[in-house]
């Protein structure tokens, strides 16, 4: 860091030197963690296209999109919570519960209304998490773990005969339909991601969320309503988890209480691959979406190449460690050349 001194006279307007803003922007995009994930995704996709003639087909790509949609939405929710320095382990339970609730409600009302109500339940659970953590001062990891446990129980009680099959074909329509060549599921996920992106980038809430994650004490002293911000972040996390649960449930045409366990771990894998820091207030929607796609392509590739499906866990675990190591190296490099 070099000390830059100013003109001493307070009246003299100092023209600030501008060194090519376009070039600077290009450089900052190039060194962003999102770029690294993008390159990984690109290489993976190229590799897959070479390795399997079935990969780059319209049908398969739609498939990847369908498989990744719910994960990407869930990742956006996880992002909000991680950005304020928290963690939400209840999302597995939230997904299971919303799936079961939506499926049960769909037996007596149109799917759209069932989905809406289920999403509201999920948001309410997020609010409760946020209330206990931000206002009650309880530990996020303990509160959300306990909440997830309890929700799993509720979901199991609500589906005493195992997964609830929905007979109404409109229930699965969300997953099955396409707008042009693009599955509706993907469109729904994109809408959520764009919304999340705008919230974080164009609204004061987003600025506040990043500032709380960066330095909560300083943010509070600067006039940020830190507790309300954290509460909202958990509520949004709950809402996106609920939407993810609905997308999953629509895809399977059923409501299953244990649906969320695997996808929760995948979501955390995806956000860390996508460059989100733990407790640093760093991470973007673009990053986590790319992270989700990386996992989606890996899962699809393992299917197409006929490899034992359990390999995907080993690969994604390895990728997380690779991703954070890369971030660490980049950080050290930046510090040395700052």
């Amino acid at each position, binding site marked *: 860091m070099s000390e830059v001194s100013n003109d001493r006279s*307070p009246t003299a307007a*100092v023209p600030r030197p*501008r060194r090519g803003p376009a070039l*600077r922007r290009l450089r900052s995009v190039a060194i962003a963690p999102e770029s690294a994930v993008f390159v990984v995704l690109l290489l993976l996709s190229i590799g897959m296209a070479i390795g399997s003639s079935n990969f780059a087909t319209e049908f398969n790509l739609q498939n990847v999109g369908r498989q990744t949609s719910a994960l990407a939405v869930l990742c956006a929710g996880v992002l909000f919570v991680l950005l304020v320095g928290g963690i939400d382990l209840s999302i597995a339970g939230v997904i299971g519960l919303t799936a079961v609730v939506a499926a049960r409600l769909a037996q007596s009302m149109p799917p759209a209304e069932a989905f809406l109500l289920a999403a509201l339940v999920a948001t309410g659970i997020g609010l409760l998490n946020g209330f206990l953590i931000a206002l009650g001062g309880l530990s996020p990891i303990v509160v959300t773990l306990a909440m997830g446990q309890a929700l799993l129980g509720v979901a199991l009680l609500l589906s005493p005969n195992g997964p609830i099959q929905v007979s109404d074909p409109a229930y699965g329509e969300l997953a099955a339909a396409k707008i042009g060549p693009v599955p509706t599921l993907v469109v729904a996920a994109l809408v959520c991601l764009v919304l999340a992106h705008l919230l974080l980038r*164009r609204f004061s809430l987003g600025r506040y969320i990043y500032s709380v994650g960066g*330095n909560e004490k300083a943010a*509070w002293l600067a*006039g940020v*309503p830190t507790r309300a911000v954290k509460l909202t972040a958990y509520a949004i996390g709950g809402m996106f988890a609920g939407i993810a649960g609905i997308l999953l449930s629509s895809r399977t045409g059923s409501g299953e209480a244990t649906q969320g366990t695997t996808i929760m771990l995948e979501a955390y894998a995806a956000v860390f691959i996508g460059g989100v820091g733990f407790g640093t*207030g760093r991470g973007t929607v673009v990053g986590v979406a790319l992270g989700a796609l990386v996992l989606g392509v890996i899962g699809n590739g393992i299917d197409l190449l006929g490899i034992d499906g359990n390999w995907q866990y080993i690969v994604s675990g390895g990728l997380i460690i690779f991703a954070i190591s890369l971030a660490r190296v980049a950080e050290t490099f930046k510090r040395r050349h700052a």
Partner: protein
Amino acid sequence: MTAASPVLVLRDVAKSFSGVRALNRVSLRIERDECCALVGANGAGKSTLINIACGAVQPDSGVLLLGDDETTIRSPHMAIELGIATVHQHDQLVPNLTVAENLSLGRERTKAAGLLSNPTRESLAALEMVGLGDRADDLVESMTLAERQLLAIARAVSLRPRLLILDEPTAALTPNETKYLVEVIERVRSAGTSLLYVTHRLQELEEVADRIAVMRDGQVVAERPPETSEAELVELIAGKGIVAHDEELVERRRRRAFDRHEERNAEAVLVARGVSDREGAFTDISFQLRPGEVLGIVGLPDAGVVQLVETLAGARRPSDGTIEVAGERLRGRSPREAGRRGIGYLAGDRARRGVIPNASVGETIALSGLSRMTRLGFIPGRRVAAQGEHLLEQCQVNAADPSVPVVTLSGGNQQKALFARVLATHPRVVVCEDPTAGVDVAGRESIYGLVSELCEHGGGVVWTGSDLREIATVCDRALVLWRGTLVADLQREELDEPTLMLAQFKRTVTTSQSVIRQDHPRGEYV
């Protein structure tokens, strides 16, 4: 080592930190079985001296003699092995362990198979000596500050040191607790340990010390017997040599706005009435701040200045009294609420309490004023950017682009960016805590300029800091706190470094009426 040889001798020890001289060829001798007190103002070099003696800092030049032998103390660990134990101000006790466990921390003895053995006799004796003999199994977190201080001393004593260094052991203690501590110190000394006792409190010296060394400007400037009068000590600490009325300083005082007569009589922008702290850091503070005025608040570390300033900024809720900003009452709920009512807060300790490391310069500046500009939470990008550009210009923040990370700026420019963040809220009053700490000369000038500009527009400024010379220069008036009470309100005519220094020790050199007499019941005045 002969009986007459001293425990520790420092000879011509010098130390600079990035060009700033902290110790200027200081010499000090500590004899066997004596308690040597070390006094001096902030920045006189006491801490550096202690850090050198306990191995935490290496001197640039000079000699350390232990007994009769020249030594180099390379680390705190080595200092302990050489028989120098130190009790720092914020001691490193582990709150969730017991007293006995803390006592043996880091030098546990084990039985066969790695089992921890019971506390040694020495450590129990050390506990006995400080009067905590029956508390061995209590958790440290359940103890009072005074008891922790005693435990820290017991831990140091159980190392059987030749020299025990105590850094402001009484800073957080009540008079009764202090009295007991003095007894304990006497016991430690009669057990054959010499002491170096650093303090701000001159009252207790006569009982504790055998000799008083006074530091100023990185040197020991005088050594006095314990019965030396407080007044004489304060004068030694402050230094007679300081020019009381430095013409150049007066010239540079930034108070043009306040000179205008009508503003002297203008209605106050900030009024505090009988404000008291919840934790007792200060009690019954009343004052007014007029438009265009820069009000300094000074005091020793235990005076409650930090807590008072936090209260004014809304970061701390008072137990009693009212604070009004331009006629509106502050509820003291949060800095956000204070900000809405017109108080801007430039918090001290920039790295921990000011800068948000993942933000760009533009985002930093916009943060506090954001809720004034948004519509339904939406950020009007162009307006915010335009305001940011304007503030960058006004505050002369030297950043290539508003999009660069704020942490890549120099300290001075970071501080100016934070000042810009405060200005973005259009504050009536700005409360700043040591705003020029770690800021270079040019940066300081810009900050002084910003403060005077703010005053010219009718704003008020509350300014604290450890640099009394700066306060004498920048402020129009200064309040002096002493152990939580307001003891002086110095007007501009009497503002100079020695007066401020003396007032901090509750001493007066002037006969001004504005100095509150000690017997005044409420300490109230406007």
